């Protein structure tokens, strides 16, 4: 039996789902697969909690070979990974993460533009995953209509603030780490987060009102391997890594849905309210947004990327899977 040493890194700590599921699903699944034949075993070298790279620094750490494998939060790299931002320009489409990851993985396989993204970055991407299943507003005051959002100061992570600003919200750029503080002190009135984050990070303590406008979720992570490390691994190990990375996506998607569903109860228990936007208002909202996806695709088309085709394929897959799809983002 040959022992292979693999360094695995994330800027997040083990209490964050990204790393927790790595430890609970990804790594054990790789080990189990390899144990079936007994040819190889992995000696995992964990470097979590930002000891090797900050959140967002994983991409370069993998590129430069400081780590062999890592989870990359793709939203931090709109400049390097424009194709992976497709979820953030197609809101109000789906909150089924496992479906989203499956569709994305198919697109990655079908369009070489995805792997071409990674070639200059000296890495190989195993599978798409992520955590936000459905963006909701977690607010200090109850919200029930689109009008209530007008003038609301909403803490958000960046790109997805474009989903709420047309409804009159004032975007306050922050990070998951300071949302609690922003809302607690009243600097922001609400935050744009997903159910799992509300429960895990106890956001309900500061904003007990849950407002679901059906904005949906998106892919936000990839698991990647340094190119030189990948070339060193035997075929059997590569297959085990790929399959386990897909399972990681399924596990984290299910985790997000499960914990996310608890968020509603948690809100009610802490004296808050849970409200949903009417279908009518949802349509009004989504149609008030600029053509985010077309703008995004056209910018990429200019660089010779078949983004319109990719966008159409993504939306078609969502329609075929009977997702809510409140707006056909691929149609002008």
């Amino acid at each position, binding site marked *: 039996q040959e022992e292979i040493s693999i360094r695995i890194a994330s800027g997040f700590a083990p209490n964050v789902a990204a790393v927790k599921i790595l430890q609970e699903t990804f790594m054990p699944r790789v080990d189990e697969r390899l144990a079936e034949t007994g040819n190889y075993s992995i000696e995992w070298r964990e*470097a979590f909690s930002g*000891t090797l*790279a900050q959140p967002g620094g994983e991409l370069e750490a993998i590129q430069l070979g400081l780590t062999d494998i890592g989870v990359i939060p793709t939203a931090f790299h709109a400049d390097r990974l424009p194709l992976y931002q497709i979820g953030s320009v197609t809101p109000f489409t789906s909150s089924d993460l496992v479906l989203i990851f499956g569709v994305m993985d198919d697109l990655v396989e079908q369009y070489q533009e995805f792997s071409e993204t990674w070639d200059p970055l000296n890495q190989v991407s195993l599978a798409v995953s992520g955590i936000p299943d459905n963006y909701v507003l977690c607010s200090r005051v109850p919200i029930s209509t689109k009008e209530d959002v007008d003038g609301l100061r909403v803490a958000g992570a960046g790109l997805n603030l474009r989903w709420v600003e047309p409804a009159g919200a004032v975007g306050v750029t922050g990070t998951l780490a300071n949302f609690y503080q922003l809302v607690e002190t009243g600097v922001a009135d609400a935050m744009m987060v997903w159910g799992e984050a509300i429960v895990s990070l106890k956001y309900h303590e500061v904003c007990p009102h849950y407002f679901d406008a059906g904005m949906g979720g998106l892919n936000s992570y990839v698991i990647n391997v340094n190119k030189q490390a990948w070339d060193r691994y035997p075929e059997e190990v590569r297959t085990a890594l790929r399959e386990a990375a897909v399972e990681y996506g399924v596990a984290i998607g299910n985790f997000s849905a499960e914990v996310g569903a608890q968020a509603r109860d948690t809100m009610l228990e802490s004296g808050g309210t849970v409200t949903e936007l009417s279908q009518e208002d949802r349509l009004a909202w989504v149609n008030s947004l600029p053509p985010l996806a077309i703008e995004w695709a056209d910018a990429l088309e200019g660089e010779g990327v078949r983004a319109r085709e990719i966008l159409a394929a993504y939306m078609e897959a969502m329609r075929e899977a009977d997702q809510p799809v409140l707006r056909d983002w691929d149609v002008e």
Partner: protein
Amino acid sequence: MTGLEIGIISVGAIIVLVYSGLHIAIALSLVSFLSVLYQSGSTSLAINLLTLAATDGIANQTFAVIPLFVMMGLLMNATGVGRDAFDVGDFVLHRLRGGLGLATVASNAVFAAVTGVSIASAAVFTRVAVPEMLRLGYSPRFAVGTVAGSSVLGMLIPPSVLLIVYAIITDQSIGRMFFAGIGPGIILSTVYCLGILAMAYFIPSMVFDPTRKFADEAAMGADRFEGVTWGQIALKLLPIGFLIFVVLGGIYGGVFTPTEAGAVGALFATLYAVLRGKLTLALFVQTLRETGYITAAVCFLIIAATMYSRSLAFAGVPSEIGRFAQTLTQNYLVILFIFVLIVLVLGTIIDAISIMLIVVPLFLPIMLQFGVDPIWFGIITTIAVEVGLLTPPLGMACFVIKSSLTNKEITLEDVFIGALPFAAMMLFVIGLLVRWPHLIYIDQWFG
């Protein structure tokens, strides 16, 4: 070679290089480079480790506030706001032996309510308190030691960059972390005061300079506060009171976050300086440049410390330490003891924020198994990490004091030796908080 061996050898190399006089940041970078080169055999990897840390080691908002807090400190020094706070303490406490030491601690505790970084406190009170103590016959070591020790309050009493970092890496509420810093801040200040009184009454040689080398005999004999009224003293509290009102009011009134407080505080300190007619354009430019220099020296050290902690992570040292601690014992007090010990050892050569990033994720899960309150653990960690500000060879507070001193006869060793009793008192406070954990919550003090 195991990770732990690499860790021990690299620590040894850093200590030798630093004490021979190599710049500390260079020593840390060089050892990190060689350590990764040795482990991986890849030059490009070792180079990239340094380059990456240089560009992303400080690129976040937590560090971005450092220059603004430093600038606020410099302006408060230039306009005499720090001095006024100190004068008030002096007036109230001057009849007690060691009164100037008490005044330094008390005014630092108040100043801590507006600053988020200890280096600002250290810089301001070196200029304000040390010359006055020397003039009145205090020993130089005691003078600088008191400033070093009480500068620690700047990051224990909120707002505090260190408490923010802990809250971020452990998903705790920053508000609650801040609240939990108040009680221990008061306890530490009190212990400092009692310690100073004890030294002044029982071992006066630790507090007063028998040779009176720097003393101004005339000033010592005279009643310095003859003719000074309580009204005049109260007036001196106005500027600092106003700044505290702006900073705390702004934070709790939902105007800005504790990290943004540095910028607002610096703005108001600037406005105040302009109103007092103390700020010329030239002085303002100098303040900006001085802020830049202090920021560069401090952040370059943080960058180098990041390189070093990453080289340790590359060798797997953190997880080995964690495993080691876990297998050692199932007694939580012993693990806590080991934890504090590790923090103290790391505190000699790594900066405060990096230590938190390295050890907290390793030990918090172990601590949680014993049902420990993570907020309490954060306060214990913060105080233990802050001891490192006072210990050689890398003691940020002592460095800042040394570089802010106008009296060049006081050496860096004097600062470290003078700070020693205060480091000991910090450990005593950790002991108190371990024995009575609820002490961290000020609202639980009286039932």
